């Protein structure tokens, strides 16, 4: 089942980058700050996806799970404050 990881990687990259792009476009038009932070979140999600591949394929002997979780948490610590403080904009 070599296809499944490729599907997952491709789908994640496509979806995350699409969201990041659409939100960034909308931010440039409306200047609604929440959209910018959501875009950053999806960029980080896409980046984490790269780390997933690095973890499983390139550095298969080492477990990078701590770094991947740390990156995911960083993304959420950007997204969540933006969502919580949304009423400011």
């Amino acid at each position, binding site marked *: 089942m070599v296809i499944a990881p490729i599907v997952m990687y491709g789908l994640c990259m496509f979806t995350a980058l699409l969201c990041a792009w659409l*939100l960034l476009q909308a931010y440039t038009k409306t200047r609604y700050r929440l959209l910018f932070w959501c875009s950053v979140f999806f960029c980080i999600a896409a980046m984490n996806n790269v780390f997933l591949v690095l973890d499983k394929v390139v550095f298969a002997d080492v477990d990078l799970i701590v770094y991947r979780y740390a990156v995911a948490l960083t993304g959420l610590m950007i997204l969540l404050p933006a969502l919580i403080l949304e009423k400011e904009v």
Partner: protein
Amino acid sequence: MESEASRKHPIEVVPPEVQRFVLDRIDSIAQLEAILMMRNSPDTWWPSSTLAERLYIADETCRAELDALCQQGLVRGREEHIGWSYRYAPSNGDLREFVDRLVYYYAHHLVPISNLIHGKPRTRIHEFADAFALKKKDR
């Protein structure tokens, strides 16, 4: 002797379906006034700059308000060489009827209708969803 109407809570004099129409379709007083203005000459294409001037709002704000009315099926827009123009064009008979009733109630009960509009929670989170609308909706 007090009349029935004055002893009622002001918002009770407006029928619930008209209230619902206002809450669902109208976001601001500017939008309401724009509809009234355009409805008075329904065959005219109003340039958005003209409407902005009459409504005492900025051009960009006017565009945004009228686009929202297009989304609600109350108004149609088209792009001309001078910019966007809009026309009163409810997309079905029900909407037309609701607007007619709203005009009556706004004329006779301005404060309750205004309060209804001002009481709507103003957030921008719908812009998040709008970011994912890939194609412009038909105007």
